[in-house]
């Protein structure tokens, strides 16, 4: 198979004893959109329960679903996922795995770092595990998913990934081992 190349291959790595900022590759991103009134039911048959609002993610086994717009969802699955073929014909299916880079931010200062980047209330009581924000970092659209108490995934447009990486690691500079 043609080798995959990361958009962050030449980005400066970030090292910190208290904070992990790293690309989290190895996922499949499929966008699905409705073309029929029973779309959500068909989707649920294949992918499991759907998130009720844009602000929440729904994790079903190896897959996590995001509601990203009216009758539009993202399905983030394992590196090899047959969900696209299983949904073919039932809705508009658009593979988007290459279009996004997933940057994980994990550790006690993660919320402080994100607070320098996104205009979202990140208090533990508000942006708890399972929360999702469709927001922006450095003028580019990103999707932020809280996947643990101090663990977040930021889905970044591939062509802006280096720039957003630089913005994130710059925000986290004071936590770096060797700034």
């Amino acid at each position, binding site marked *: *198979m043609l080798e995959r190349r990361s958009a962050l291959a030449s980005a400066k790595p970030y090292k910190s004893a208290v904070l992990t900022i790293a690309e989290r590759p190895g996922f499949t991103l499929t966008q699905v959109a409705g*073309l029929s009134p029973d779309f959500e039911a068909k989707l649920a048959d294949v992918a499991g329960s759907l998130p009720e609002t844009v602000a929440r993610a729904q994790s079903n086994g190896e897959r996590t679903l995001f509601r990203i717009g009216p009758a539009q969802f993202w399905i983030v699955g394992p590196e090899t996922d047959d969900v696209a073929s299983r949904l073919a014909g039932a809705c508009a299916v658009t593979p988007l795995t290459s279009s996004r880079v997933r940057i994980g931010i994990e550790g006690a200062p993660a919320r402080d770092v994100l607070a320098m980047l996104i205009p979202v209330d990140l208090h533990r009581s508000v942006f708890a595990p399972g929360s999702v924000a469709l927001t922006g970092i450095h003028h580019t659209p990103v999707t932020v998913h809280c996947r643990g108490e101090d663990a977040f995934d930021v889905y970044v447009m591939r062509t802006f990934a280096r720039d957003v990486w630089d913005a994130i690691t710059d925000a986290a500079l004071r936590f770096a081992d060797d700034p």
Partner: protein
Amino acid sequence: MTSFRRLPQGGRIQRARPVTARFDGKALGGFAGDTLASALLANDKLLVGRSFKYHRPRGIVAAGIEEPNALFTIGDGATTEPNVAATMVELVDGLVARTQNAWPSPDFDLMAVNSLLSPLFQSGFYYKTFMGPTKGSWMFYEPFIRKAAGLGAATDLADPDRYDMRFAFCDVLVVGSGPAGLAAALTAGRSGARVVLAEQDRDFGGSLLSGSDAEQEAWRVACVDELNSLPNVEAVTRTTVQGLYDGNLAVLVENRSSLPHDARKGQPRMVLTQLRARTIVMATGAIERPLVFSNNDRPGVMLASALRTYVNRFAVAPDKRAVIVTNNDTAYDAALDLAAAGVAVTIADHRASVSADILSRAGARGIAIFPGSGIFDVEGSKGVRRVKLGGAHAVTIECDAVGMAGGWSPVVHLSSHGGIKPRYDEAAAGFVPGGFPASHFGAGAMMGTYGLSAAIAEGSNAGASAASHAGFGKTRPVYAPEHATDRSYAILPSWSPPQGAKGKAFVDFQNDVTIKDVKIAHQEGYRSVEHLKRYTTLGMGTDQGKTSNINALALMAEYRGITIPEAGTTTFRPPYAPLTMGAIAGRTVGSHFRPVRLSPLHDWHVKNGATFIDAGLWKRAWFYSWAGATPETAYVKEMELVRRGVGLADVSTLGKIDIQGPDAAEFLNRVYVNGFAKLPVGKVRYGVMLNDDGIVLDDGTTARISENQFYMTTTTAQAGEVMSWLEYLLQMQWPELNVQVASLTDEWAGMAVSGPKAREALQLAFPGEDLSNEALPYMGCKDFVFDGVTVRLLRMSFSGELAYEVHVAADHAISLWEHILKAATPTGIMPYGLEALASLRIEKGHVAGLELDHRNTLDDLGLGKMAGKEKDYVGKALRFREDCQSPDRWSLVGLELMEPDKKLRGGSILFAASDEIKGHGRGYITSVTWSTELNKFIALGLYKGGLKHEGEEIIAAFPLKNEQARLKIVSPHFIDHEGVRLHA
């Protein structure tokens, strides 16, 4: 003569921690806890600068953010920050401060000659004098005026410090940590609400920090301790709320200048926080007003409250004797504390009678009181020598300092930022908030509530109300210390000075505006407070009139014979206090100034000799080192490669859109001017779309992947706009169409394989695919799987040669690109960059971004015949409006240079041969290149009347370089008119 000293004990300074700063090149000693202002006073450095216009000697007036005089340049070299109030600068080791606006020094300032010319500098002087004799006179004079009457100067060097920006949210924001603010924050905090308490000082307590009462201090400490113990409360010091905006957005700026702030370690000097609060309690306190009298600007004449702060908080006091002039009771707090510190105090009280309680307390401290008296004049030039009283007691008193107590002005700025004008309160003799939106509350001195226990009660109530408004009902109130009293205010407002004194009586110290200036403004008709401000500059500058505004408008009201409320106030706008530009810029500096967009092939280009050029946000490969070291040489070689062999170009920046649904074909048929309803599966078509005003929006291609799925490409420049346009049309105009669109610009990489050997190259790369002309004819497309990955091949051409675009998921782009280059090595394939790409299309006559500039119609671009006559499409109706059909419109032409020794430049203005070379001409050159096919410069341009003038000789003028050249108008299609190469 004025002199100050450090008291042997007391104050909040840490005597065990001495600190040494540099002031005008010399060591300045003090203690941790000092401000630059308190250290200067403790070192008896009273003369701290010269005034703005007259260069009169000036001293420290205040102890807080309102300081008008003691402005210094802090730092040096790249860290220079001018116009910083000494009262707000914490004294730390290594601090460097310089005086400004005085030469050679404040003590001996040659510009003090201005003082002798003072009649010239009255209000309106500049406008009256320097507007003539010619139209541009002001432009000539202004630099000189600014140099003579300036503040400090900023540096041109890049600021090495770091400024962070962050977002925050809370239920209750409390602004100010005086008694009311502490009570509000604690009451709200006890409810469980998320509270942010913002204090501009380095310590919490507000006016309590200037007091001397042990019980009040114990109350303050207990409040702060409890606040710090509550996990739901974030109490921050050194943080000024600079503005309030719609939606309860507060902008907070934390100044960490006195703390370690090494940018290399990511430590910011300042942090700007955009805080969204559900409710806001303003407990911003009040600022004492000066009184207006002759020579009230002499060093040593200060606010009475400032004298109190310096003695109690910093243990700095006038050497022996102080005179306090007042029109209210609060000045007696200062008088009593000064007296307790051993200063002999005399009070001149404007009021004829003073309460017995005050008389008895003052008497016990040996304070002499002259009721019914004010200051007639101050003697001394670089300090106070003596004051002459006027009124009931015309006595002269030797003294070191004068305290002015003209009453208090509530800090109503934040309550006014939303547009609510403050209201004049007669009892408080000041402006208080004119009202609050439902989620805003006020407490304490900013409401005109000056008593301690009343302020605490009001603060506690406001905190409870704010918490309740935010949905937190249960709380416990905060009570005042047991013996806290509500001291009387009993102000007798007095605005005008005693008549007869000859010295200047200042209203605005910072802008050197005297009472005479206000009178002149009145006489000349500048009577509105807004006009008064602009005519005299009163209330401008770094202090924005914090001490002067109320006195000035009260005087204007007096002159006009109207009440103060009728005179009104000027408008309060953010920021509340001076703010360095770095804090506003935050991290949006250097490489973070704007986002940068990189192709999936970027890393390969970097490693393989590409030079990049900015194209919008994209970094695009401009040319490659294999072809030459400069763009001028490289692009010609790269063009020849494509015309004679085969080249590979990165076209990943093109917009790419997935369009799916049973109505997708109908949708495209409406969007494009040409027909798409019957485009067969496996075919690509060039299309043009218009805005609804009939002007061309974009062009591109769309391939039909299956019956219900299309793959659109757009120009790089319009990718985002077209995507938004399609979504708008589907959601707002044609919701009945069952279509879904998704951007694929980031998902798919694109590479153009162009040149006579393109098929050969691809056949080598994909030996399993039939790429013959029959299997994949011009404008055909196919998907296939190569090495486990889907590849989309579209046979279409931008260069005019046999060409294909190979699209693949971006993750695999570099691998596929490298595979093509390697497999097709026998064809001589090499990469070519944007310059060659754009030049090849000029030879072919393809329009691009420079021609698609949102001003041209289909017909202007020679594309009118493409449009469907029968079908409807966006922009059809307005495309045919009269102006769009005018035969005189500038439309697309090809241009050939007729003078081989000359050069053509993009942007040149086009003239007919007989025209005078002047004005906007008859058109301009949009795109220009050297043609490797024709061996001459060729261009595309827009020309009045267009190809009606084909064959005519015209002139291209480039006035910036004073160049002219003769051109011939030709067809914009310079090569392969029959399209033989495309179909090869």
